């Protein structure tokens, strides 16, 4: 019974927690500029995320080690310093972008400049991290995040042509602006497969004490939850394609992206968009900061856990506090959150091979996975993703310069 409850909560959380600053901005830009053409990229990114998250959860459930801890043990610090440093940079920037996104959401609701909301949002995020256990953080924010289903409702009410949608799931080359198209396709992958998600999910599996016999919960949550979450991202893309695209509105601010909900929700549109953006970004900000605490403590072998009193895991507490403060400082400088987001998603793609490669080794190691090692299909996927990731990493910076 408890496994069923965990499964339902896990799936709901995956849906509610899927959309955040990266997925909203990349999907909205893709829809407004290329119609439905990039739906395949959203679907492909969702499959990649589901498979990686499932492996991270399985590794944690069987070995009782998070991804960061397993990489430290298996590869040593000489290797780990590379993905660790890269993830730190991406996470700090992404956290700044998420806080900025949440601040813009409050600005949309109140009309007061977003810079004024950065510090209060940072303080609120820290208070959530200081006072709440894992279940409240994960499920509470995930359930609130169900408001993002408004993008799916919007897409449904707009009534897209089903045949057009179906065709868009087959990867094709764009008829115009090839570099921009390629950049957005790669960015969608970068926005979806965030490095922090992998360790966060595996740490969460340990926090929830998932047993090996309940591995099916992990598998189902990873695939079903991500699939439904991907549908929300697709809702953003379709709404943007049908509302912003025909009006030649290019999304270069979140205020413009909010207009995509107007035909479906009328005067409630801006408020709904703001609440969706706000909850999505705030939830992601809390998770990124929490994961920073996880990674720091796990790599050093210090006590960690959102279910532990904060003073009995004080290095873990200090780490998430430090990363939150650093990100707030960056957000307060006044960078455009949308620009920071697009830089983050490009950097995510650059670091992807270093994040994926350890999976290939760990998921085939008897010591960690015992009878639950990867089969040929999953290994093939990881090998393709590593090679593809390396190729994308090579092209993403030129694409950012010429197509971003």
């Amino acid at each position, binding site marked *: 019974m408890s496994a069923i409850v965990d499964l339902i909560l896990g799936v709901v959380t995956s849906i509610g927690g899927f959309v955040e600053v990266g997925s909203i901005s990349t999907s909205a830009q893709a829809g407004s500029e290329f119609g439905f053409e990039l739906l395949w990229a959203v679907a492909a990114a969702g499959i990649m995320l589901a498979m990686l998250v499932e492996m991270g959860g399985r590794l944690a459930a069987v070995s009782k080690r998070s991804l960061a801890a397993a990489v*430290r043990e298996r590869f*040593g610090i000489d290797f780990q310093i590379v993905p660790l440093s890269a993830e730190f940079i991406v996470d700090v920037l992404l956290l700044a972008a998420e806080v900025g996104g949440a601040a813009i959401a409050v600005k949309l609701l109140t009309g007061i400049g977003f810079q004024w909301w950065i510090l209060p949002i940072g303080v609120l995020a820290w208070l959530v991290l200081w*006072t709440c256990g894992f279940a409240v953080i994960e499920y509470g924010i995930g359930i609130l995040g169900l408001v993002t289903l408004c993008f799916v409702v919007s897409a449904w009410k707009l009534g897209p042509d089903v045949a057009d949608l179906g065709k868009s799931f087959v990867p094709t080359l764009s008829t115009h602006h090839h570099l921009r198209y390629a950049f957005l396709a790669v960015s969608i992958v970068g926005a979806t497969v965030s490095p922090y998600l992998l360790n966060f999910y595996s740490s969460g599996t340990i926090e929830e004490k998932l047993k090996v016999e309940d591995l099916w919960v992990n598998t189902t949550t990873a695939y079903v939850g991500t699939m439904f979450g991907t549908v929300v991202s697709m809702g953003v893309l379709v709404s943007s394609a049908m509302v912003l695209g025909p009006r030649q509105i290019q999304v270069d601010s979140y205020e413009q992206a909010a207009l995509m909900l107007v035909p479906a929700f009328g005067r409630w549109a801006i408020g709904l968009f703001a609440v969706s953006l706000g909850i999505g970004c705030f939830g992601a900000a809390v998770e990124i900061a929490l994961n920073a605490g996880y990674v720091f403590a796990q790599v050093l072998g*210090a006590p960690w856990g959102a279910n532990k009193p904060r*003073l009995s895991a004080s290095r873990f507490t200090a780490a998430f506090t430090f990363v939150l403060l650093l990100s707030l400082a960056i957000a307060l400088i006044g960078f455009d959150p949308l620009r920071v987001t697009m830089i983050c998603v490009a950097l995510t793609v650059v670091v992807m091979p270093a994040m994926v490669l350890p999976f290939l080794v760990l998921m085939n190691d008897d010591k960690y996975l015992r009878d639950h090692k990867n089969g040929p299909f999953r290994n093939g996927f990881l090998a393709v993703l590593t090679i593809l990731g390396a190729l994308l990493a090579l092209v993403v910076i030129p694409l950012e310069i010429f197509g971003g």
Partner: protein
Amino acid sequence: MDLVRDMLDKEVMDRHGREMGRADSVVLEIRQGAPPRVVAIDVGPSVLLARVAMFLGRWVTGLEHALGIAEGRPVRIPFEEILDQELEQEDHIKVDLAAGETAAAALESRARTWFSGIPGGS
């Protein structure tokens, strides 16, 4: 035993099952006419980062001095203190010490003082 696979980077637990850190370095004694012998493990971020680059290790040592927690760090744990020496079979290294009695807990204690005045932390 494979030192790199079975000892280096493994989590170190004290006799009460509390986390002390990881085996950040392994100390070997080089003996004339005999194979090297493991004499201790070192625990501490300065030796950990010194494995990446010496200047990083020195930088962490400087930081520990600045925080007033440098005394006794890195913590050197003699091999004899390791309780179960069949490390191939173990998920972690259990040692016959109490984390609180060594400098391994110094940063944890110092960080605790930063937050101790805030309600709801314990």
